[in-house]
């Protein structure tokens, strides 16, 4: 029971990180109709910026906070220099160009930060654990990550559904041409949306940096899952992305945690460990294939395509 609670929290944490990535993906996808494989690179760049800035400032909080505008600027730069030329292109062109960007960023970090993976040491007050229930300790930092994810999700929901800029974004998502015809500066709106999406991906990278090893290619695995989440939730739907991200995060974590134990009944221990973890990963993709076979537009379709 205690293990289950811990795993549910871990799952929620993974789910919220996936949401941070998928929110940007789904907005860019829905509004600009762009498939962006380089989104995982922005996640990676966020983590690397955090490594350097925390090193420079000597403060975890300050460094992490400074890394956010850095990724925002990088995102806008990438949009202005390259991606805005791709909006009107075919998906094949977009895949190819953003794949090129992904390769570029993977080698760029090797040149700048070197081959060895980097880790970020947490400050002492975050290295403790909190008793969430009597006798159930849980990492304070992971709790902070969950809280941050929830706050951002709430803020995003508020911005998109309750503010003027959010209204424009929703308008852009449902009809790009009409929005432009109504006098909205679509090009700047797109840059802004892309930049914010990049910042959210970067935030996920920053928050994950102390938990994982920061290394080249770290964005690739999570990008594929985030793409799954985006399509599963319905392209362009932030609400759908949230539901799908949490479901996938929980499913992935729980399956990885408990499948090996289940498989130990029929397999030797080491084989069960390998097979169980892999089966846990397979389940989320299986879920996606089945869902899309039944509901081709995802769970919360924004509009018919």
């Amino acid at each position, binding site marked *: 029971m205690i293990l289950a609670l811990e795993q549910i929290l871990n799952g929620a944490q993974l789910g919220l990180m996936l949401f941070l990535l998928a929110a940007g993906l789904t907005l860019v*996808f829905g509004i600009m109709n762009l*498939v962006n*494989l380089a989104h995982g690179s922005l996640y990676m760049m966020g983590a690397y910026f955090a490594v350097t800035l925390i090193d420079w400032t000597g403060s975890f909080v300050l460094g992490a906070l400074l890394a956010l505008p850095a990724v925002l600027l990088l995102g806008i730069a990438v949009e202005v220099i*390259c991606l805005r*030329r*791709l909006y009107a*292109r075919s*998906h*094949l*062109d977009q*895949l*190819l*160009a953003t*794949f*090129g*960007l*992904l*390769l*570029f*960023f*993977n*080698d*760029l970090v*090797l*040149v700048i930060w070197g081959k060895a993976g980097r880790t970020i040491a947490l400050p002492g007050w975050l290295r403790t654990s909190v008793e969430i229930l009597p006798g159930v300790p849980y990492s304070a930092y992971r709790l902070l990550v969950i809280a941050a994810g929830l706050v951002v999700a709430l803020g995003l929901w508020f911005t998109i559904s309750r503010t003027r800029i959010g209204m424009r974004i929703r308008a852009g998502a449902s009809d790009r041409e009409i929005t432009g015809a109504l006098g909205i500066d679509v090009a700047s709106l797109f840059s802004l949306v892309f930049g914010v999406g990049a910042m959210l991906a970067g935030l996920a990278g920053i928050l994950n940096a102390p938990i994982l090893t920061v290394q080249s290619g770290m964005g*690739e695995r999570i990008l*594929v899952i985030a*793409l*799954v989440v985006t*399509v599963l939730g319905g*392209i362009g739907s932030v609400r759908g992305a949230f539901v799908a991200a949490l479901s996938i995060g929980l499913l992935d974590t729980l399956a990885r945690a408990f499948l090996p134990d289940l498989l130990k009944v029929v*397999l030797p221990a*080491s*084989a069960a460990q*390998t*097979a*169980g*973890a*892999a*089966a846990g*990963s*397979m389940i989320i*993709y*299986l879920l*996606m*294939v089945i869902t*899309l*076979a039944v509901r*081709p*537009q995802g769970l919360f379709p924004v509009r018919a*395509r």
Partner: protein
Amino acid sequence: MRPTPRLVIYAALLLALALVPLAADLTGNRFYVTLANRAVILALAAISLNLIMGYGGMISFGHAAYLGIGGYSVGVLAEHGIDNGWLQFGLAIGASALFAFLTGLVALRSRGVYFIMISLAVAQIAYFAAVGAYRYGGDDGLTIFSDSRFVPWLRLGDSVTFYYLCLAVLLVALILTNRLVNARFGFVLRGIAANETRLRALGVPVFRHRLAAFTLAGALCGLAGALLANFADFVSPSMMDWTRSGDLIVMVVLGGVGTLMGPVLGAVAFVVLEQELSNLMEHWRLLFGPLLVIVVLAGNRGLDGLLGGRRNG
């Protein structure tokens, strides 16, 4: 057929590929054969992707899965002491075709970006199946200790023999692809890609044609995977990583989408660029990545387009 510069270049490319072992002997640099062999096998995989992507308009972002399925068919049988090539390659082609058929049944009901994502998800399932295959090395992969054996006089362990076998397979695949895309089936496939509604209105069973093409491409890529396993004497899940599927797309687009020789040109260019750029600098993707962006922004007709070829020509 008038010998345009483009045809001359393609003939020269195939001739050059045929002469690689000779050149390697003369210069004493056996590495050329290895390099060319990799290009030839990848060209075969790129041809199969081009069949569905270039002619059929189906952007499969999981094509490397078939390389893996073909490779593991050889590896798993070899692991159990079965080195009969007919069996190994038969299983490679059969299993890939079956996997493609089942994938197609689900994925081909969707279009556009949904098709891309389903093909990606299915390939990820295959990838993690290999990672979880504890008996066959899991994440570490599987070393193959014996080459496929067909007939006594054909020794795949000899690098030159194996190279010419791969080149022969490539030529046969090119000839068959050319016949296929210029036959009724090919015209229907291209018609579906260009205007599905119209073909449907004409009474063409669209789904069946797409499924047939998808299955055929899977089988061909499985064959390439079986050759790749014999080439490397090793299979691992990383053969099926989604970035490998990206590489295959790069080869097809680099060469020229929907052209007969484009994939061959693209695969050779990819392998040569990889080799030359990585000689030039360790982090060669720093140049290769932007190069891809430029290829796309410059109009995306690929090398074939540079040579004056026309899409679907």
